[in-house]
């Protein structure tokens, strides 16, 4: 035992990268990041109304959540909203990525970046109330009201950036030789794009779509302010339920929502590594 400890200490002295305590702090960070989530998931399977005293394994809370009409409706709205916002924002982001990569810097490109990065710079609460004010103004002064479309528009706008980032990264890694070869063989620009660029770009587009779906599916703040009556998404349902009181049913729905995010991030991770 002591021998091992001494040898490890000797090894550390030789290791250029070693800094005392850093690994411990890193592991502590991971524990801090994951422990609460793990507790939440464990107690969603508890056969008890408590979310801190364990009695027995049970999947009753999932059954209860699934039987709940409100939750089913909320899940449907969430999926519909995230689905539409993902498709629209990914198309827009693909076009934007094609226009902002693999070119020399041109006039206006910095301004374009600034506009695209808007969601990173403006705190979400500010975007939320500004969007609410904008739609309220449209409705009262011009009589324009898109209903569910309001929510779709608001989500699409903040999804663009998240779809844009992986597509842009993919484009920057692609070399130009294949496209040049196509052009040399008299392919029209459209043919080159359709037959060469687009197929090569598919993993980037898929990765972008995953991220867009997650950020839309998980959004709370903008949705709370922009959603009209009856437009309750899953996170909004959870938000309301937490304010009414803590139940294992919330843990069960939360676990499902977490699972969706984890699934999509994992897919994103594998797609973007291809």
């Amino acid at each position, binding site marked *: 035992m002591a021998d091992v400890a001494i040898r490890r200490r000797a090894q550390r002295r030789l290791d250029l990268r070693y800094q005392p305590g850093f690994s411990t702090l890193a592991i502590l960070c991971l524990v801090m990041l994951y*422990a609460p*989530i793990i507790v939440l998931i464990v107690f969603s399977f508890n056969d008890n109304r408590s979310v801190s005293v364990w009695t027995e394994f049970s999947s009753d809370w999932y059954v209860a959540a699934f039987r709940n009409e409100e939750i089913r409706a909320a899940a449907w709205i969430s999926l519909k909203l995230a689905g539409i916002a993902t498709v629209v924002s990914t198309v827009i982001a693909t076009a934007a990525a094609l226009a902002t990569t693999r*070119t020399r810097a041109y006039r206006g490109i910095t301004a374009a970046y600034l506009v695209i990065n808007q969601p990173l710079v403006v*705190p979400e*609460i500010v975007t939320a109330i500004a969007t609410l*004010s*904008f739609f309220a103004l449209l409705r009262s002064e011009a009589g324009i009201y898109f209903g569910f479309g309001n929510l779709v528009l608001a989500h699409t*706008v903040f999804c663009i950036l998240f779809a844009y980032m992986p597509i842009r990264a993919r484009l920057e890694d692609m070399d130009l030789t294949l496209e040049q070869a196509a052009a040399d063989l008299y392919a029209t620009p459209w043919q080159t794009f359709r037959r060469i660029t687009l197929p090569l770009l598919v993993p980037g587009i898929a990765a972008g779509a995953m991220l867009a779906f997650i950020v839309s599916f998980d959004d709370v703040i903008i949705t709370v302010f922009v959603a009209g009556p009856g437009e309750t998404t899953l996170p909004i349902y959870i938000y309301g339920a937490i304010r009414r009181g803590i139940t294992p049913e919330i843990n069960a729905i*939360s676990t499902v929502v977490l699972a969706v995010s984890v699934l999509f991030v994992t897919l994103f991770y594998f797609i973007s590594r291809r």
Partner: protein
Amino acid sequence: MSQSAGISLELADAGRAGATEILAEQEKLLRRRRWLLLSPALVAIGVFGIFPLFIIVIYSFLTPGEYAGVNWTFSTDAYVQFLFERDIFDEATLIFNSDYLEIYLRSFLLAVYSTVAALIFGFPAAYFMATRPPETRNLWVFLFTLPFWTNLLIRTYSMLIIIRDEGIVNMVLLWLGVIDRPLVILYTDFAVALGLLYSYLPFMVLPIYASLEKVDFRLVEAGYDLYASRFRVLRRIIVPLAKPGIVAGCILVFIPALGAFITPMLLGGGKNLMIGNLISLQFGGSRNWPFGSAAALILMAFVMIALMFYVRTTTRERRHLHG
């Protein structure tokens, strides 16, 4: 002979002129296509993301509507209300009121505390990731990124259930005999700071990791050759090289922490308001949209200052690097 040479030169000139014309034509086409491709994104974000910010600038100079929204009469009341309240008996008398200032100060301090805490935990974590063997490095990055992509509300709720009076943290501490009465953590400023740290830690780790990954460890070796201690190597070589990541991480934690809404709402209870809650209250219960807009703009001003600081340090750094 000379004549034919002249002709061929002329032809070459003509050809060159044609080529430049064609190139210019292509350049024009390219430019048009570029803006065509960019326009959907710029229009969508411009109309629904940026234009609304100008609307709240206007709203902040109006008076609140009866039920919600605004009345179109000019007034600076929203900004006056930030610092003063009107006397109940005499409308013209203004009494200094620091309630709102205190909310801003508290938010600022909580954002600073959580940024500092995130740096203290995040820097070693990023360093740990950057010094893993290349095969496993991606896995560590994945582990640190995953929480960022999960629902913030759910993560905050999971924090709430473990730090409650009857939560796991207190149960374990009671069982260990460290305390004999549950610690009150929930609904305190500490809980909010902890929640902010928990929410935004990945924002600190990832940019620092990105700059540490590029560190050339031969510099560290040189430092040791010159008899530097581990701490000196850290302070004089590693930290300066990671500085762009540290600055970016601090900004990325500070901005969302300052405008946090969910964390103080769930973990701070009713008493420990932050700017985000103040803004949201004006658009909900209080029905004072102009004041809410003004509060949001004051928050934006702080964000802008933080960003300007960021841009200044990064450009100075770059100038420094290029001589």
